[in-house]
């Protein structure tokens, strides 16, 4: 199970939404998927995004960026960025390369401080491990 699926599962009852934006194939034709080409049309891209959900067993929402990469450009154009946003709509943490354990630390601290979950047990920082046979 990919790391962000584990995060989604851990924070399922803590008002956390995880979004994966499907932007581009950074290594088209490499990494054990030689059949993957660069996107030609939106439908082509959408098909790959569906394959991504199937191959990596992703349950979190996969948003498909438009062909002009408008949203990806707005958010910094990096291949594996991550943003953590608080309940006030402000950015809490951002990184050029996403690390699920760091994201988990920030989320756990945010959620544990939230008065809305005062009655719920405090969440510990987790160490995420990939299941055997799952490509991350």
């Amino acid at each position: 199970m990919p790391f962000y699926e584990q995060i989604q599962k851990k924070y399922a009852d803590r008002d956390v939404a995880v979004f994966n934006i499907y932007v581009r194939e950074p290594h088209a034709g490499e990494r054990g998927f030689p059949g993957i080409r660069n996107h030609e049309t939106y439908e082509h891209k959408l098909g790959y995004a569906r394959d991504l959900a199937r191959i990596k067993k992703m349950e979190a929402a996969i948003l498909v960026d438009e062909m002009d990469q408008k949203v990806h450009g707005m958010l910094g154009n990096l291949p594996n960025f991550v943003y953590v946003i608080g309940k006030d709509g402000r950015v809490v943490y951002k990184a050029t390369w996403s690390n699920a354990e760091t994201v988990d630390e920030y989320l756990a601290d945010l959620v544990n401080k939230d008065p809305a979950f005062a009655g719920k047990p405090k969440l510990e920082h987790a160490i995420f491990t990939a299941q055997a046979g799952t490509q991350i």
Partner: protein
Amino acid sequence: MRPANEFLRKPPGPLFGFWSWRYLNLVKTIKLVTSKRVKSFYEKFPSIFPPGERFPDFALKDIHGKTHRMSDYLGKKYLVITTGAIT
């Protein structure tokens, strides 16, 4: 007349061959240019929506065709936004 692919592989003449090889090797040139482009993205990244700033609103369709508007989530939920790809 030499075939084009042989010309690309081994251009004629000592000096001409040396310089033209640099420019004809498009793969290397493109990689060089894109690496500079990527570097500029990394340099710009910290100044785009730094911690403490409001996250922008945008709307994108998910793989099932449902539109997700960020303003529906901002201020109500904690959000984790990242990217994914097959390769």
